[in-house]
């Protein structure tokens, strides 16, 4: 099962893998949500929605349903 | 009486203004209708 931003917990970081261009507002891409960029979950609202994220340096909040559309690769802690 | 004429002019202006505000359907060239253009 593929992991998405929605499955990240507060404080976790990951790298954006891909997403369906149709399902995400273009604005989000323009704010830095692009494959290969870093995403960190800064805060999760009570009730789990929306998510406060740091994407590529941009601090923004998106709804859970949008977060579910963005697939990620979790960061491997060990770097060779 | 001058006063009466002026007063009625003001009344007419007020009515004209209200009619225009509420009943006039303006022609909008770039109007998308209900506000959501569905452009995206």
């Amino acid at each position, binding site marked *: 099962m593929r992991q998405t931003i929605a499955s990240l917990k507060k404080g976790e970081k990951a790298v954006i893998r891909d997403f369906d*261009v*149709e399902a995400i*507002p*273009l*604005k*989000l*891409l*323009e*704010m*830095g949500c*692009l*494959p290969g960029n870093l995403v960190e979950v*800064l*805060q999760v*609202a*009570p*009730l*789990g*929605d*929306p998510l*406060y994220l740091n994407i*590529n*340096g*941009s*601090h*923004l*909040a*998106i*709804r859970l*349903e*949008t977060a579910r559309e963005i697939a990620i690769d979790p960061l491997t802690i060990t770097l060779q | *009486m*001058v*006063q*009466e004429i*002026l*007063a009625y002019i*003001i*009344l007419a202006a*007020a*009515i004209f*203004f*209200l009619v225009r*505000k*509420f009943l006039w*359907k*303006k022609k*909008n*060239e*770039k*109007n*998308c*209708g*209900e*506000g*959501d*253009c569905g*452009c*995206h």
Partner: protein
Amino acid sequence: MTSTKNINVALIGNPNTGKTSVFNQLTGLNQQVGNYPGITVEKKIGFCKLPYNIKANILDLPGTYSLNASSIDENVVIEMLLNKNDKLYPDVVLVVADVENLKRNLLLFTQIKDLEIPTILVINMADRMGAKGISLDVPYLEAQLKTKIAVISSRKGTGIDELKKLIVAYQSLPTEPCLNASIIDPEYFNRLRKTFPNQLLYKLWLVITQDVNFAQLDRNEIRNSYTRSQTELKKIQQKETIKRYQFINEVLKDGQKINLATAKDFRIQLDRILTHKVWGYAIFFAILFVIFQSIFSWSAVPMDFIDSTFASLSTLAAQHLPAGVLTDLIAQGIIPGIGGIVIFIPQIAFLFLFISMLEESGYMSRVVFLMDKIMRRFGLSGKSVVPLISGTACAIPAIMATRNIENWKERLITILVTPFTTCSARLPVYAIIIALVIPEKRVLGILNLQGLTLMLLYLIGFGTAIVAAYLLNKILKINGKTYFVVEMPGYKLPMFKNVSLNVLEKTKAFVWGAGKIILAISIVLWFLASSGPGNAFHHADQIVAAQHLSEPLSATDFENAVASQKLENSYIGIMGKAIEPAIAPLGYDWKIGIALISSFAAREVFVGTLATIYSVGDTDNENTIKNKMQTEIHPDTGQKVFNFATGISLLLFYAFAMQCASTLAITKKETNSWKWPATQLVLMSGLAYLVALVTYQILK
């Protein structure tokens, strides 16, 4: 050679870059806000004196992240930049960027450059560079981005003079693009270029992807041969975004250095508390409470002052102008009409002072973040919070504040339910009825019964708004994709200049928007109340004299009695009597009927009308009105008119009824159709009628 024409300067940039600050720094008080024709987007223009006697018109465009428009606001930006014949077409564009978010801000910059308009990059918030460990190689950046850069701090006021010099020298700015648009999809763009050799490639691209009118070219020409499906176009847009960011990353690699060791960040600490599960909400509600308390206590004094000033003006006018119809119109219709508008300025100004400060500081985004999920259960958005709160001062600026809600359904529902919140115009009505029918007792030793009733009415207002939203959400079948994205800006101290200009702007919007309508209706109502058909009206003085043959009245009492007789037989009196059968089941008589009709202009007119009806004349002593109303007996039932049942029925009627005409007008404007305000009028009036009816029948 001095040019007599003004230069057109356009200000563009991401939200939260301090663009408005820059605008304010350049234009000071020389600015005005209007509307673009046909749509509800604000058009902000200002005027600035530059060195060498050159003058500039500065146009503050709506904040946007890119030229790919996702809202009507952003559409306006493109329309203007593509149309060379537009009289506001800029001679030079200032792209405002925030030094902390340079990477993202430059996306828009590269797009503007592709339109080959002279462009200056304004890097704002220079005062934060030290704290964030950021240093820039400006000459390198200028060369790579093919532009001139002004590093400024609009907060501290530094760099503005250098910026002005750059603007004056606009003709020497390079106009080549820094990125080649066709590398996005070479095959597609080459075909475009061959067919339209005279047009800018990027311009063509924008026309194809946006819903935009291009002056020199008919959209259909391009559409037919180059159209791809929405998805394919979006894929190309995605490629465009990626390519641009690649270019920007290259440039910033050497042009910008960030030393994380010296960077400090308060944002994280503050956010931890302000968006906390428990503390976040607690703090928000505490702030709300403080705001409302302050607004009420601070406005009391100015409101009293305005009240007595206009009353004096009215009397002065009546005394010093030559007697006649016009003088009466001025003294009794126009001056009180204007007074009725001005008296709400203190409350509105204070409310927007607070909202402005919260927005400037960056806190509002956190509120939206906290409230979004809850609001969505009722078909609203987190961004509906500001309009709903603003509605407690006045619905007009509140409805205008819904413009930043992206989802049309959420925005529509917000517009439709905001009028349910208790606006300040209803307070005089509530106050006098409560004083008449609610005893001055204390409950549980500390809670004042009258105060409690008022609070209850406020809660009913909010509660109804929420319930109505819930129902509308279920009933309305409108599909809208959710494109909710909220930027969480860094926390900043609100700047006095920005806040005060914003308050000024919102207050003006209320005064012009609602004011004109209230004044016009006041004039019409005055005529309806001061003229009437038939003898009963024209010979009022004789009739009254005949009624009191046995006990002649004093001069003042006689005057008041004649006024009352005239009102009863005026056009509006006839209207009031005509609707009496319809409102009798609610516990109202024709006198209340008149007041109901006239308060459609503005709720507070209710009290003034009652004063006239009960022949209190010019006295605006509240006690006198109250006493008169208290002792009024209904001729048919022999009971008090303002009894408990009628009082509560009236209170609830005003809680639910469609609010003033101005609200209808602004709803029509913002939803672009008469369907919605018409529905509101019918449904809300119907609801008010039913509730008042049931209440009276149960309580009587």
